[in-house]
């Protein structure tokens, strides 16, 4: 499990670089490094389906983010209540980590999950669904309602993007008058 720790530390360093660097394009590229590291972590954790999906989704997200940041300079402002804002944020994160550390004792130990429901899936999955990939059988047979909801969310997101980006639309009467003049 040493490689897992190394990859996680690599991801944290990449995230710090992505947050703190000034240039937006470098920041986006650092996020890409974090995502590819996450894909390798999924592969080590024996989740090949999630690793494939994470890899391809990361590439597409990187292309979209680079599209948004090209040719756009950014004035950085650190004015305002710098000390107070940072202090409040760090306090929040400290409290969060403290409470999380207390709550983590109730979780099952790393590497020994409980698997009450999943044991049933693994035992009866082949005879009930006929699929040899259990993730596929869970997605599309046992928990297909989840996938239906996901399809709805994706549809809504596509409609939202198309509605935000489109040019034509109804204009107010005052704007029409200005155009006519």
């Amino acid at each position, binding site marked *: 499990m040493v490689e897992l720790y190394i990859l996680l530390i690599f991801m*944290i360093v990449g995230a710090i670089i992505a947050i703190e660097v000034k240039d937006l394009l470098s920041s986006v590229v650092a996020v890409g490094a974090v995502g590819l590291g996450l894909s390798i972590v999924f592969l080590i954790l024996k989740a090949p389906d999630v690793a494939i999906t994470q890899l391809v989704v990361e590439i597409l997200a990187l292309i979209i983010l680079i599209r948004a940041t090209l040719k756009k300079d950014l004035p*950085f402002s650190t004015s305002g209540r710098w000390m107070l804002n940072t202090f409040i944020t760090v306090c929040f994160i400290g409290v969060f980590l403290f409470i999380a550390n207390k709550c983590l004792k109730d979780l099952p130990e790393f590497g*020994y999950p409980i698997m009450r429901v999943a044991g049933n899936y693994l035992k009866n999955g082949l005879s009930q669904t006929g699929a040899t990939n259990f993730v596929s059988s869970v997605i599309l047979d046992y928990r297909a309602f989840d996938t239906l909801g996901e399809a709805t969310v994706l549809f809504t*997101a596509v409609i939202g993007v198309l509605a935000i980006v489109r040019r034509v639309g109804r204009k107010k009467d005052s704007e029409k008058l200005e155009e006519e003049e």
Partner: protein
Amino acid sequence: MGIYLLCLLLFCLGIYCVLRKRNIIKIIIGIIIAEYAVNLFFVLVAYRMNGRAPILSPDTTITNMVDPLPHALVLTAIVISLASTALLVAIAMRIYEKYGTFDITKIKELKG
């Protein structure tokens, strides 16, 4: 237990970026990092020591498979996160077109 804490540290970095930065693209990057951390947490909970991937093979019988249920949940969440990222980027590009900046403190007239 330490690996859960590292994962939560990654989540906190994303939260810090969302709360503290003023650039819209940086805020989107913080949301993406927080999503990564949550997905990683689900898959970490599912891992079984010396386990195998949850896929049957024709010639050998495998007994110690990892938990396939969080994998299925994370698989849908990743695609949803891509769509929501695209939506955020579309809104950010519209804001840049209207106000000429990505800085959220310079954006006035948010109402109406």
